[in-house]
């Protein structure tokens, strides 16, 4: 019996030891400086540039890094990146440089990020970089935490084969993309032949917030100065300039010229059907170049046209979303800050973003950088999306987020599509609720209207 007891105790001890090892194994070391080589950890959530950046970092480590005693440890995480970063913060293991997952404001307020100007040579870097920051996006209380580096542009993606087969061509016989929304509706009707499984346009409504922003509201901004109109003096929202957009959308529905099952169609499925040659056109973004060449290999000849407008004589700048790349984490202060800044600058050199463009990974936010790129091996569609940079306006305003009661405007949009609410009903409902939320936010101090008041003319001058 004693022997049995000893065996049980031994087993218990071994299991407990394993469990404790598992529990404490997460407590790893932080930054490492070995033999004067400073390791700078860089985290992002970008899968599309993982291979390229990993190789570039390895090359850096074997060349410049050896001379300067710097080693870049680059990691690209997947969909759980935000959770991993939040966990790293709580364990004091956050990296020195990182792309912030989501909004930066929370991390700025918690003191997790360092303004660039607090780093050695930071102000000089900003002066040389010479690109305005966006208050509320990468600038908070006058301090710059990152710089805009790349841009996502939108355009009308169209199937040239279907256009030609439907007789929508110019005098040279090339596919003729529509210039106005009326033409989009007309061409969609002409293209649609349901017996042949060909439809004019894709309306992917399954993710209403994605559709309403990227594929509905943003495109129609080319026809208006801004949507919605916000009267900052009276603190009121006005969505009435979306009326024509809704009339167009309901016209498409009445014509039945959209790919069937719009309510259950998401963006991936619609792009897959476009790649199969079943859809004439859709509102796409620059990331579709990679999608239609690798993820869903397009079986058709396709191109990109500027976003249509309501009136050809009144065109405003096209929406495009600018994005930053890396921010500096507070753990940079625990290591050699000069070397961290060296790495930060390296990631923001023109050469880095020329490389990104030439490999069709990202479009640089500065048009003068695009002009320096060697576009000979770049696909025509990528070039077409990049051309919009010179004709666009940054849509990345400070995120005016309101604490809304009830559904967001994008969900109410679906009710207009479903016919359960009229356009007038939509406008009245969202105007009322968004106005109430805006006034409440201003009253309780959570919204600083000075950050959002704009008086910018977005008209596009040729």
């Amino acid at each position, binding site marked *: 019996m004693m022997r049995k007891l000893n065996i049980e105790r031994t087993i218990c001890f071994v299991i407990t030891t394993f469990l404790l090892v598992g529990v404490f194994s997460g407590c790893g070391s932080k930054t490492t400086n070995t033999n004067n080589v400073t390791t700078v950890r860089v985290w992002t959530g970008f899968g599309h540039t993982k291979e390229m950046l990993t190789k570039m970092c390895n090359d850096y480590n074997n060349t410049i890094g050896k001379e300067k005693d710097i080693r870049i440890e680059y990691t690209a995480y997947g969909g759980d990146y935000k959770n991993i970063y939040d966990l790293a913060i709580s364990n004091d293991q956050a990296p020195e440089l990182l792309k912030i997952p989501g909004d930066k404001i929370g991390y700025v307020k918690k003191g997790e990020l360092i303004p660039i100007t607090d780093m050695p040579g930071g102000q000089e870097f900003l002066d040389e970089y010479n690109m305005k920051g966006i208050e509320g996006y990468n600038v908070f209380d006058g301090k710059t935490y990152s710089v805009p580096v790349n841009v996502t542009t939108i355009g009308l993606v169209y199937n040239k084969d279907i256009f030609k087969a439907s007789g929508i061509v110019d005098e040279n016989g090339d596919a003729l993309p529509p210039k106005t929304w009326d033409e989009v509706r007309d061409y969609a009707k002409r293209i649609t032949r349901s017996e042949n*499984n060909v439809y004019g346009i894709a309306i992917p409504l399954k993710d*209403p917030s994605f559709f309403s*922003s990227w594929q509905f509201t943003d495109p129609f901004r080319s026809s208006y100065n801004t949507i919605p109109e916000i009267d900052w003096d009276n603190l009121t929202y006005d969505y009435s300039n979306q009326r024509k957009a809704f009339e167009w959308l309901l016209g498409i529905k009445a014509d039945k010229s959209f790919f*069937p099952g719009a309510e259950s169609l998401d963006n991936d499925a619609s792009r897959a059907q476009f790649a199969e040659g079943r859809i004439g056109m859709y509102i796409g973004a620059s990331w579709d170049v990679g999608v239609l060449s690798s993820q869903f290999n397009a079986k058709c000849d396709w191109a990109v046209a500027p976003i249509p407008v309501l009136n050809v004589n009144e065109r405003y700048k096209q929406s495009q979303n600018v994005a930053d790349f890396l921010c500096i984490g507070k753990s940079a202060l625990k290591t050699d800050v000069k070397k961290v800044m060296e790495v930060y600058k390296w990631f923001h050199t023109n050469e880095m973003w020329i490389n990104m463009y030439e490999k069709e990974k990202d479009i640089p936010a500065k048009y003068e950088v695009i002009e320096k790129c060697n576009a000979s091996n770049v696909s025509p569609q990528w070039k077409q999306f990049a051309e919009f940079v010179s004709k666009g306006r940054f849509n990345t305003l400070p995120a005016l987020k309101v604490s*809304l009661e009830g559904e967001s405007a994008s*969900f109410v949009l679906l009710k207009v599509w479903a016919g359960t609410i009229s356009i007038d009903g939509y406008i009245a409902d969202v105007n009322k609720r968004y106005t109430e939320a805006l006034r409440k936010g201003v009253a309780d101090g959570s919204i600083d209207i000075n950050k959002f008041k704009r008086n910018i003319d977005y008209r596009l001058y040729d």
Partner: protein
Amino acid sequence: MRINNTVSIKKLISYKKKSDYSEIIQSYAMLAPQILGFLIFTIYPIMWVYRYAFFDYDGVKAVYSGLDNFVRIFTRDKLYWDSLTNTFVLAFGKLIIELPLALIIAVFLNKKIFGRSFFRTMFFMPNIVSTAIIGLIFTFIFSSFNGIANNFIMEIGIIDEPINWFAHKWTSMTVIILASIWQGFGINMLFFLAGLQNVPEELYEAAKIDGATGTHQFIHITLPMLAPIAQIILMLAIVNGMKVMDLVMVLTNGMPAGETEVVMLHIYKYFFPSGYSNPQLGYASSMGLVTSVIIGIVTMMYLKLSKKVNSTY
């Protein structure tokens, strides 16, 4: 001799007490990780939610708001109650089909039929398939474009044009219910099977001798004997049905126009809003608290109403 026996008994008792303490310590040591995990990953989040239910919290700043959130739920948030109604419709709508189906299949698979192990495995398989995959499968089956369901129904001549299943509330709910039944009936079938195997064979033999038919045996022996386990199965099914979220999110995301939104999805959208809205963690927490109370009341009512089931046999 007696003294030696007493001494050895005392030694044995002393040894046994030490051994008991040692076993107790070992037992708690082995349970500790599980209990710790339960406290950290279950109790603490529940307390967190209950605390923030009384705050206006956007993830950055928390301002005490007292009962404001609850006033909003009961006076201004019609969508919450609509989503709760949808939840009840889904939960009970699928039970009406799922449980009888599981029971009937369990009765058949309890008999000695050829391939019963194969069928038991196959019917249980949907339960282990990822909800995201199930959502995708049913989206394709009921797709307006080349969907199998539409093609089949058109082929047999019931309709001329494909049905847009996800364009209307009740067709969308039908798809969700069918997907949910397909996913869940296997585990209920196993529960019933376990219950059936505890029914004494002698009862059936005696009934046969008395001239009872198969139907009589099912109604007067099988059902009463299964009543206690059926009570548990039904309670679990109701509670799980009311907590459904992932399947609805993958299949319809509350579409069309939020008409198939269930209460957990409604709450989720306040925790993780899309678009230009702030997260409203405080309000979402208060909805979570109210929902948990409602589920608790439903469960208690059910247990009270089904109390007599335990005294059936």
